[in-house]
């Protein structure tokens, strides 16, 4: 499904939540929508879901959304960041959505099982009694099983454990290439694995949009932590810009592109004194030079 937003605006009283938002999601594209809290990401997703009246124009496959959104809703699936605490049993919630979307229980159960949730076992439990992670997995399973043409994912793995997140990634990657995805996320691993484009919202406006690789080059940073013994190792690590923490570990932040080279040097230079080394990616909120490119 192709989605076009043209000059979309939304005001809540004095607060202008969206201002002239214009971008396009080509059919089959996978886009991350990122920005700080209050930047308008959720408002934009809700506008796409038809829950907010907005200014400007939103078109789906070239046609305006219109007032009756039922047919459109069938083609869109949504995973909220925080799952509601419904009192109905899991069975009723799943059957309700399955019935509305014409999806079989066993199809949803298979996806849920993949994500680490046994729907049959949880069927009689109130949806609200599930843990946050279980609720999110059930909702993710409902969305992934729905054969929707547009997936709106709002921090979909925020409450999931690592194994389930990995399974979720695999499921999303296995979706047909025609499925358009809009992902609200701050997680670099999600951006790296799931999307090819990034749209940055700041104060309700599109501050930057472009290829995911370019965004990651600007924002992804690696933290390398080293546990090594002896003064020669300490001298070398200090020369390389490492700082020693209270636990005795040395750490340094550097662009992701330089990580592999540094790790190679560490294993070579600290041979015999190296006890452990850890590298992890984090998001640098402010890119070098401040602000965002456009």
């Amino acid at each position, binding site marked *: 499904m192709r989605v076009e937003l043209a000059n979309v605006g939304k005001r809540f009283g004095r607060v202008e939540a969206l201002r002239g938002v214009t971008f396009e999601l080509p059919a089959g594209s996978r886009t991350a929508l990122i920005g700080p809290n209050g930047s308008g990401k959720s408002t934009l997703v*809700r506008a796409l*879901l*038809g*829950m*907010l*009246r907005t200014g400007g124009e939103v078109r789906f496959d070239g046609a305006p959304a219109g007032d*009756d*959104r*039922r*047919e459109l*809703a*069938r083609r*869109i*699936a*949504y995973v*909220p960041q*925080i*799952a*509601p*605490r*419904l*009192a*109905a*049993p899991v069975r*009723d*919630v799943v059957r*309700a*959505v399955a*019935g*509305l*979307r014409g999806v079989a229980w066993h199809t949803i159960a298979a996806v849920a099982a993949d994500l680490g949730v046994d729907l049959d076992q949880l069927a009689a439990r*109130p949806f609200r009694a599930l843990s946050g992670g279980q609720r999110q997995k059930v*909702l993710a399973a409902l969305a992934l099983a729905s054969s929707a043409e547009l997936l*709106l994912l709002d921090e979909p793995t925020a409450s999931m454990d690592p194994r389930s997140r990995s399974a979720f990634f695999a499921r999303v990657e296995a979706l047909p290439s025609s499925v358009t995805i809009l992902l609200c996320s701050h997680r670099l691993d999600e951006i790296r694995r799931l999307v090819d484009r990034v749209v940055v919202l700041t104060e309700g406006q599109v501050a930057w949009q472009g290829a995911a690789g370019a965004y990651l080059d600007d924002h992804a940073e690696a933290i390398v932590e080293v546990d090594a013994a002896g003064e020669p190792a300490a001298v070398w690590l200090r020369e390389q810009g490492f700082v020693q923490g209270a636990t005795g570990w040395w750490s340094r932040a550097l662009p992701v592109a330089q990580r592999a080279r540094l790790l190679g040097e560490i294993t070579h230079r600290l041979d015999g004194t190296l006890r452990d080394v850890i590298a992890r990616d984090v998001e640098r909120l402010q890119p070098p030079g401040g602000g965002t490119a456009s």
Partner: protein
Amino acid sequence: MTLRAQIAVVARLDLAEVLRSRWLVFCLIVHAVLAAMFVLVGLRESGVVGFTGMGRALMSWSHALLFLLPLLALSATGQVVNTARDDGSLELLLANPVSRAGYFVGTSLVRMAALVLPLLVAMPAVALVGAGAFGQEVPWGFLLRGVAVSTALLLCFTAIGLWVSTLVRNQAKALMLTILLWAAGVALIDFGLIGLMLQWELPPQAVFALALLNPVQCARLALLSAAQPELSTFGPVGFYLANHIGPDGLFWLGIGWPLLLGLTAWVWSLGAFRRRDLV
């Protein structure tokens, strides 16, 4: 999926909410306790506005319900839509192929049923238990009249509660407004209005009109319409109307006006729900 099927889906999910919050049980207990009290205390050899025995007990109970039912209805529905909006359940459900009308109708039906069914069960049950225990004859005519009037009043305030929950986003403000509406409903019957008339020198026509706009007052007059009109029991508005439109007119006014008011509030809420931002 048809609108009827959408309504059924929404109703099933909302019924779980109602059962979890135990409104059905709560309403039944309230009705039963009140009824038991009036049956036990009321079955003595005395008369109230021409009623004796079981009729008197039912009359007293119905009158108590007139003040209680609006409170039950408003507290059960005054925060339905805004709570669903805040906790994300509205967003989740309407992200699926459910029309806004389907959601609103489904929720309304469940809430109305949850409030009316306990009444429909409790009233005849009380009459039958009272009749069996005390050997009294059940005044079926008055019982049906009481059920009809109470149901109309309940539906009216259920719709008003839904109207509040749709139009007032803030839950605390919605709660405050429901309490104010209830207080206005039970306070501004014509005895209260006469006080206002004397205090502020309001014209009698204005007092009559205000009294008739109050669905609680209309329901009260409809219940009393089975008795001989007396100024001391009917109040000035009721006494005037009873002598002009007769007992039947009073009865149908007491059913028709609350239903019309409720229908207006419900249609208004539905329109607002379909047009406004949902989150």
